[in-house]
Every structure is written in structure tokens, then in C-alpha cells.
């Protein structure tokens, strides 16, 4: 048997050929890995922080209950694209300083697929700044303020209960649900109110010293000037304030005809009770967020009969049956407003957007959010390029006999508006 001598050149050619095949093969595999569809997700994770302890814990628990109800509903119906939905909820204790670290954790450690806002605009701002940093976005069924929409809307933030700026109907800057409330206040002469009360001439304006509170605080003065009203009390209430004896004393001395009060739901309760302790009232009282939950009429958790006659907003009209609101009302009978419905609506939007996008990819879902229409328990939704809902039609209600009657705008309701008449 003879041994074949392989020359050096042949050896180099041989090795070079093997290496070339290996490189091409590796490149081809790399391209294949990069372009093949990702494996199907087994779960989709939604994260947020809520005040589960602290002064706003009652409201936070309602949000959480609505969120869990929506998640259970989605999972019962097979999940989203075959993936089960799971939530991660951190307790922020209604403390703004905790928000940014919690959302950093949700994004960088928990790797959540979607984010929901914390409770309220002041808490949402730092959360949105974190989302923007990591190229994530938030979907909201509740929170909004124009400063937030201006900075984050359409890219980092999509808000179902935020309508766009409207310079045609009002020459003044209006914020989310105040589009209806300011329209209502502006058009007092068109109110269908029970006779016996003269048009208000003196108004008390109370807002919270934070984003949308300051925005609406600026709103009322030009409206009052146009209407010829005298703003006799004009207060910005601190975020930590839970005792309102000072401002109620001012109201008592000023005797306004109309009190316009915009507080978080949990603050509306002690305010109304203190008003009664101090024997203070007014012909008309509007507390925009009193409609957030039917707990308002519960004497143990809310204000009971003292809330009768309060003009309100932030509720879901009983005549509305869109989205899965009937399912929500079956599971949570006291759900009449945005506390229980806020995150429920956000989950509805996530499910529809992911289904339409075909994946949880951020860009694909964002594109779906900006192009598609959604049905939620609060309102139909069609986002504009600023993340505001072009289909949001807020209406004003009044608590009458423990439920909210629609009283404005006049083209959708002919119900009369009653003066505030709690048992004294």
C-alpha cells in the first residue's frame, strides 16, 4: 500500500474550504435564527403599581379588583393568542417617590410586556418618564392630564378617557373629563333645573394642587368671568390634605351658589362629611370624581344619603353596554365608575390590540393602537396620533336616589337637574 503525500498547498486548500463552508453555514444559521418567527409566548405579563396601602388604598384596591376581573375574564376565554395573562402589581403607597424605581423594576427585572399607569396623573408622570427611557408605552383606561398628553401622548401614552384639545368649542384649555363639565358649567342657562333656584352668581372652586387640578383651576376663572360669576372661594388643596375644615369655613362664610370641587374619590368622602358636620351646603354642588364607584352611596364606605344631588362625572352611564361592561357589572355590582373599570378597560384594549397586531411586539401593538378601533367597558376607543380618544363623549350626571342620572349634554338627556338636597 502506498502513502499519498499531500502537498502543503493542497492542505491549505482543504482547510480553507472547510473553514469557508463553516462560516457560510454559521451565517446562514444566523440569518435563519434572526428571521424565524419567535416561539409562541406562554404568558403575557402586565405590570403596574397601585396604592395598596396608605391613604388611597381603598381606591387602589378597587383598581386592582377591576384589573384582576379583566385578567380572569381573558384567561377564561383562552388568553391572548393562546398565551395566559398574568399581572405584577407593586404597592406604591400613593407615594410619588416610589413610582420610578417600581417601574424600572417592572421593565428591567420583571420584563413585563405591557404597562398600566399608577393611580392619578401626579403618579403617572414619573412612570411615563421611565417608560420613555426604555421605549415602552402605557395604556390607560383612566388617567389623563394635558401636560402628560403633550409630553408623552401617542408614543408612550394612550388614554381612553382623554379627549384631544378642542379649540373650536371652548376657547379655553380643557382637560379630559372637564370637556363635559366645563360645557355644563358654561351653559348654565340651558340647564333643565327645577325652578326655585336663581342662576348661580357666586361660585367656590376647589382643586387639587397637581397636574389636572391646576389645569382645571386655570379653566374656571375665564368661564366665571364670561358668565358674570364671582369666584368667592378659590382654593388649591394639598395632595396630603385630608382635613378640609379651613376651606369649608371659607365656604361657610362666602355662601356660594355653586361649589365646583375636583378631588380624588377618596378625598370627596371626608369633604362631604365635614361639610355636614359644619352645617355647610350650597344650592348646587359638583364633585367630579364622586361617580367613580357606587361605594359613594354606601354610608359605611362612602357618604350615603349625603351624596344625593351631587353633580358628578367619571362614571359609566347605566345606558352604556359597550365592551365587556355587562360582564364587569356582573362580577363587581358596585362598579359604576372608573375606579373598578379603569384597568379593566386597559386590559380590554391590550387584548384587542395584541390580537390585531398578531404579537406582543411593541411596534406592532403601537401601530394597532394608532390605527384600529376598540370597544371597552367605558367607551369606544379610536386613538389619534397624540394618544387621545377621538370617540370619548363624556357626560355629566347627578346622584339621584343612589344612582347616577345623566343630566348633560342636553342632546342626549332631558333629565332635570335638582339642587343639592341632603338630609340636614
Amino acid at each position, binding site marked *: 500500500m502506498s502513502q499519498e503525500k499531500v502537498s502543503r498547498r493542497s492542505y491549505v486548500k482543504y482547510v480553507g474550504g472547510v473553514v469557508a463552508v463553516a462560516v457560510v453555514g454559521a451565517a446562514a444559521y444566523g440569518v435563519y435564527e434572526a428571521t424565524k418567527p419567535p416561539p409562541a409566548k406562554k404568558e403575557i405579563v402586565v405590570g403596574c403599581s397601585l396604592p*395598596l*396601602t*396608605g*391613604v388611597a*388604598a*381603598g381606591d*387602589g*384596591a378597587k383598581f386592582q379588583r377591576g384589573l384582576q376581573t379583566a385578567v380572569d375574564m381573558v384567561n377564561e376565554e383562552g388568553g391572548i393568542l393562546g398565551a395566559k395573562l398574568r399581572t405584577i402589581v407593586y404597592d406604591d403607597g400613593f407615594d410619588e417617590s416610589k413610582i420610578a424605581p417600581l417601574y424600572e423594576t417592572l421593565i428591567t427585572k420583571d420584563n413585563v410586556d405591557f404597562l398600566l399607569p399608577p393611580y392619578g396623573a401626579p403618579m403617572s408622570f414619573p412612570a411615563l418618564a421611565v417608560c420613555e427611557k426604555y421605549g415602552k408605552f402605557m395604556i390607560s383606561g383612566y388617567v389623563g392630564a394635558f401636560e402628560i398628553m403633550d409630553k408623552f401622548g401617542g408614543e408612550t401614552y394612550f388614554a381612553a378617557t382623554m379627549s384631544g384639545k378642542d379649540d373650536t368649542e371652548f376657547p379655553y384649555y380643557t382637560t379630559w373629563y372637564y370637556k363635559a363639565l366645563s360645557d355644563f358649567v358654561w351653559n348654565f342657562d340651558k340647564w333643565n333645573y327645577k325652578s326655585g333656584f336663581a342662576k348661580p352668581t357666586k361660585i367656590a372652586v376647589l382643586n387639587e*394642587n397637581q397636574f389636572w387640578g391646576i389645569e382645571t383651576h386655570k379653566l374656571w376663572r375665564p368661564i366665571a368671568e364670561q358668565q358674570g360669576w364671582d369666584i*368667592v372661594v378659590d*382654593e*388649591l*388643596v*394639598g*395632595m*396630603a*390634605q385630608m*382635613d*378640609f*375644615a*379651613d*376651606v369649608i*369655613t*371659607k365656604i*361657610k*362664610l*362666602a355662601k356660594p351658589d355653586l361649589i365646583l370641587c375636583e378631588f380624588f374619590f*377618596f378625598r370627596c*368622602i*371626608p369633604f362631604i*362629611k365635614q361639610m*355636614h*358636620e*359644619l*352645617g355647610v351646603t350650597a344650592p348646587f354642588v359638583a364633585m367630579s370624581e364622586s361617580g367613580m364607584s357606587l*361605594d359613594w352611596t354606601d*354610608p*359605611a*364606605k*362612602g357618604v*350615603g344619603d349625603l351624596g344625593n344631588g351631587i353633580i358628578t362625572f367619571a362614571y359609566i352611564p347605566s345606558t352604556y353596554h359597550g365592551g365587556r361592561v355587562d360582564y364587569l357589572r356582573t362580577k363587581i355590582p358596585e362598579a359604576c365608575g372608573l375606579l373598578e373599570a379603569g384597568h379593566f378597560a386597559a386590559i380590554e384594549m391590550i387584548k384587542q390590540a395584541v390580537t390585531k397586531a398578531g404579537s406582543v411586539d411593541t411596534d406592532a401593538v403601537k401601530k394597532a393602537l394608532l390605527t384600529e378601533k376598540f370597544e371597552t367597558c367605558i367607551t369606544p376607543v379610536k386613538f389619534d396620533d397624540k394618544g387621545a380618544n377621538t370617540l370619548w363623549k363624556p357626560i355629566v350626571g347627578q346622584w339621584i336616589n343612589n344612582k347616577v342620572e345623566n343630566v348633560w349634554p342636553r342632546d342626549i338627556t332631558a333629565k332635570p337637574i335638582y339642587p343639592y338636597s341632603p338630609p*340636614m
Partner: protein
Amino acid sequence: MPIDLFNVASNLIVLGLLEGAIYSLFALGLSLIFGVMKIFNIAHGDMGILGGYLCYWVFVMYGIDPILALVLVLPLLCLIAFCVQRFMINPAIRDPRFQIIASVMITYGIALCISNQEIIIWTPDWRSLTLPYSYLSYSIFGLTLNITRVIVLLFTVAVTIFLLVLLRTKFGKALRACTQDREVSMLMGINFGKLAWVAFAIATAISGIAGMLYTLSHTFYPAVGLVLTIKSLTVMVFGGMGSISGAFVGGILLGVAEAVVAFSLGGEYRDLVSFLVLVMVLLFKPTGIFGKVFLVPK
């Protein structure tokens, strides 16, 4: 708009007085504990609110007025106080060098346990007691006096008188002796351990009464206990640590100061008053209005 200054001032003083009464009541119990045991009980407000929740529960389940429900609730609170003091606080404060810091840490933990248990049992929702007389008010010379707030003031006065009388009894003298010098008191035959437990129980009972009265006159929620503890601490320092009359007067003055500042500058400055008062007192009169110098145990 012209303001009737007299009307405003009198309304504010009355408001402040009635609100300050609740601060005084909480501070009375805290002063008693500090005076005898030289510890800061951070769980004081939470124990009080626990008493409030228990009275609320008795009212909701059996329809018994919360004031009467105290008959059932106070013994239970005293039992809880015994267990807390005997099995949690005493072991933590054995070393007198770290007594104060250890007491702060252990009682803070107890406060968190209590408030979280309240969340579990009663949920974090705001609660309120609506009784037949809750919104009964009387107008006298343009002042509105709500009956529940007047009840708080009357209870505060009664508890203050009770404590001042108690301090003049044999038991009270033993308490005062321990406040001045524990070691010598023990050498004189005073059973400090038993005395401390009784003082802790009385203080907890007072805080339970204060908690019940707070729920009578305010909407409440589990986290409010710590807020009340901080207010009580401020009043205690302001009035003089360990001083009963100081706690009473300090609470009233703080309530009036808060009402005036809130009316003049805005409600968000209300809480600022407490902290400003605390800082000013510590800077210029650390012993407080009626306080005396005491020696920290070695």
C-alpha cells in the same frame, strides 16, 4: 369680599380646639408610657385606631353605640397591650443603652403589623360611622358646634382629670417615683414590672378611647394610625415629655395653630405646622411647655 374678623377668628379657634382635643387625647397616653417606661411607642396611634375599628365592628354587627362598645373593647385592648409589652417590647429594651432606639424599632414593626392586619380584616376602604347624632350641630353666636366633636372634647377633659387625680393616688405616686428614678424606686420596694404593665395598659386604653372618638368624628382607614402617632409625638414634645397637663394644653394649642395656618395659607400647610412646632420647641425649649429635665438611664 369683606370678612367678619371676629366671626372668622372665633370659628377657627373653636375648630382648632375641637380638633386639638383628639390630638391631646392621643398624646396623653403616649406621655404616660414615655413618662414611666421611657420608650417611644410608635404603635400608639395604630393601637388606638385598632380600638376604633373594634368599636366600629361591634356597632356594625350588633348595633351597639361605639361609646358603649368601649366596655367590650377596652379589656381586649388591655390584653393585647399586655401581650405586646410582655413578649415584644420588654425583651427588646432589656439593655438600657439601646432602650429608646430598640423601642422605636420594635413598636414601628408592631404598628406595621396592626395596620396590615386591619387591611386584611376590614379592607383598605375608607370607613365612617354614621350614628343618629353624627351630624347634629348647634349654632351658638354664629359658631357651629358638631356634637361628636364636643363629645371628643368632653372625653379629653375627663381623661385628663382622671390622670391628674390618678397621679395623686398611691399608685400614681409610685408612677411618679418611677418617672423620676426607676432604680431608687425599685430599691424602695416598687414593683416596676407590674407598674409598667399597668401604665402601658392604661395608656393603651386611653388610646383606644381616642381611636374610638376619632372614628366617631372622622372617616378613617388603616394607615391613619401612624399619622396620629406622629401628631401625638409632636404634641408630647411640645407640651413636655411625660407631662399630662402639657399633653392636654399642647394638643389644643397645636389644633388651633393648624386651623389658623390652614385658613390663612391653605390646607396643605396644616401638617407643616406640626413639624415647625417640633423644630422650634427642640431648638428653643426642648423640655416643652410643662416638661421637666429627666436623666436618660445609663
